């Protein structure tokens, strides 16, 4: 990569990360550095460990880090609760945003935005100024304001849930945004809206980590780096051309290139 890019500050540094859930190792030493202004894509089959990586970074309590470290903005996040990570500017766009009945979407967005603003030393927004603040961001994701009156994600279609995630990202203005399979279950129009949102929000002082197993999101958002994960490891890192090669040759090709036959690897993963 070019000198100027690598000189920008590292926002997210994952070092030799190992993790397990229910005593089973699912990350077996992952290292990854994401710098300001960069867009990275992590690709891999289902079960390769890429969603686990995103949940670990966000601090999901079911996953235990066994060794290695995650540094965000130069600070080790191990002792930070998920809410502290969010307020500091880490964002995880969920693959399956959970439905929360009874909690109003609008109220949730306001409380969440204010939690982040408070951490940034910004003034909290009252109900009225928040609605103004929200308006332009709603347009970005082309969301109908009627969604605000509903319970959080309850009864939303797949595409509506994902747009609501991007709306949250636009409100929280994260330093590092991780989007976990944001493209899955989206039709062409929704995919375009989501991609435009992500491109619009990407800037020189923040970074984006896209987690996907399809090329099609990467046609709309061009990453500088593509990492291929399998069996809890990053097997290959390259530029955008790696994604095209994957699309053409399939994931077995990466396994073979890394010297793991798919049968062996299945045993490793089991």
């Amino acid at each position: 990569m070019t000198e100027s890019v690598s000189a920008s500050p590292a926002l997210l540094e994952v070092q030799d990360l190992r993790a397990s859930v229910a005593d089973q190792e699912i990350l077996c030493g992952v290292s990854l550095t994401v710098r300001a202004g960069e867009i990275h894509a992590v690709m891999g089959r289902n079960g390769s460990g890429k969603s686990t990586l995103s949940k670990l970074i966000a601090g999901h309590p079911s996953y235990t880090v066994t060794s290695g470290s995650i540094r965000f903005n130069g600070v080790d996040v191990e002792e930070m609760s998920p809410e502290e990570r969010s307020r500091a500017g880490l964002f995880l766009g969920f693959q399956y945003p959970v439905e929360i009945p009874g909690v109003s979407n609008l109220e949730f967005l306001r409380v969440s935005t204010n939690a982040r603003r408070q951490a940034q030393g910004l003034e909290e927004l009252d109900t009225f100024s928040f609605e103004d603040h929200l308006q332009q961001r709603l347009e970005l994701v082309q969301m109908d304001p009627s969604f605000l009156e509903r319970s959080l994600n309850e009864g939303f279609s797949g595409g509506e849930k994902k747009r609501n995630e991007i709306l949250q990202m636009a409100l929280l203005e994260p330093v590092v945004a991780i989007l976990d399979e944001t493209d899955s279950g989206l039709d062409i129009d929704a995919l375009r809206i989501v991609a435009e949102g992500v491109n619009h929000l990407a800037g020189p002082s923040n970074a984006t980590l896209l987690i996907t197993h399809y090329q099609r999101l990467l046609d709309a958002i061009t990453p500088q780096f593509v990492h291929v994960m399998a069996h809890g490891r990053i097997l290959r890192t390259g530029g955008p051309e790696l994604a095209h090669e994957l699309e053409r040759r399939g994931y077995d090709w990466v396994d073979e290139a890394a010297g793991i036959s798919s049968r062996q690897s299945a045993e490793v993963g089991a």
Partner: protein
Amino acid sequence: MTATTPSNAVDAPVASTSVGDLVSQPYRYGFVTDIETDKIAKGLSEDVVRLISAKKNEPQFLLDFRLRAFRQWQRMEEPDWAAVGYPPIDYQDIVYYAAPKQQEKKASLDEVDPKLLETFDKLGIPLSEQKRLSNVAVDAVFDSVSIATTYKEKLAEHGVIFCSFSEAVEEHPELIERYLGSVVPIADNYFAALNSAVFSDGSFVFIPKGVTCPMDLSTYFRINSGDTGQFERTLIVAEEGASVSYLEGCTAPMFDTNQLHAAVVELVALDDASIKYSTVQNWYAGDENGKGGIYNFVTKRGLCKGPRSHISWTQVETGSSITWKYPSCVLAGADSVGEFYSVALTNNCQQADTGTKMVHVGERTRSTIVSKGISAGRSSNSYRGLVQLGPKAKGARNYSQCDSMLIGDQAAANTYPYIRSQQPQSAVEHEASTCRISEDQLFYLQSRGIAFEEAVSMMVSGFCRDVFNQLPLEFAAEADKLLALKLEGSVG
């Protein structure tokens, strides 16, 4: 919850608080007021019943009422059908009458023992003239004896009677004689019979024909003694076209023994009258191992006597070691309406068996039941409800919705809906759901910067919203805070 057990949630580096800690917040009202009381000896007999009646200078009809109830009670068995368990109660080991020592009821608050005023101040119920709650008249009941009633004169201007039960017996015996036991007869159930025999005091409300009560009325019950049973009696009568909103609050000190609270509430609504009765019950619930706390065995019933009358019960039950309570409506008048909105929260070792009975007698009577049960810790929370449609209840309708929320993996929730219909031209709908606050929901909210406790409390108040919306405004905010407080440390 997902595969996480409480222990690995604690081990996880990011789990800042466990659900277990969240519920075990210290009880804020657990203090005891040191005041001299006039107590009779422990035990229950016909002589004790006579003694209570004599101490209160009661007319003959009331003594007869008590004695009939006592004789009835002796022939009855303590009910065991509720889904609650407790060691047998020794009814001879209870004091049936205790009153703070002071002469008569005072004409002015200046004469009330300052310790009592201070107690109510501490509970957030200021009684003194300058600090009174605006637009809420309060009857303060301390160990079953009414201490003071505010705004009496102002209410009297509208013809509204709001006073202690004892005072009503003295000043309006004809109303008491006419309505006492007319909704909950002495033989209704074991605890109602006991109450009818030994009740000490309570509140009386009378709204005359055509009057809309100009302010909310409220009774605040405070238990102070450790070995005294609490037996209040509340009677509310709304005449033709009258309406009233009545609030009830309760607290008690923390003792490691259990206290029996067996109250009876009767509501009577005549033609076109409307009574809204709201309770926020925060009796002491016992410690985290279930030691101590109040046994809340209460009978509450409203009679929609006249056509188009309306009775609405809203309850937020958060305290008590055991709750056994079914605020009910008898819909006798044609087109009358009964409502029951309930939030019952149990934590630690609390047990609640609560619900309602809607008895449809008249034509086109309607009832709505919305029950929200939240169980945390090792508690057990049951909804028990009866919808009965009599042979004459043509065109009657009921809608019931019973939702349970489980917090943690050791709590229990049960729903026992009973429907009995003798009227084919009627409609009954019942919906029920059970949900759990999942780790993924909490994680979702946390990953948006919302602290763990706030996330739990957002979800719980979202779950209870339909009921909170029914509460008077200041009570709704209170209830929301109370629930958050009760749940602190309970999720993990």
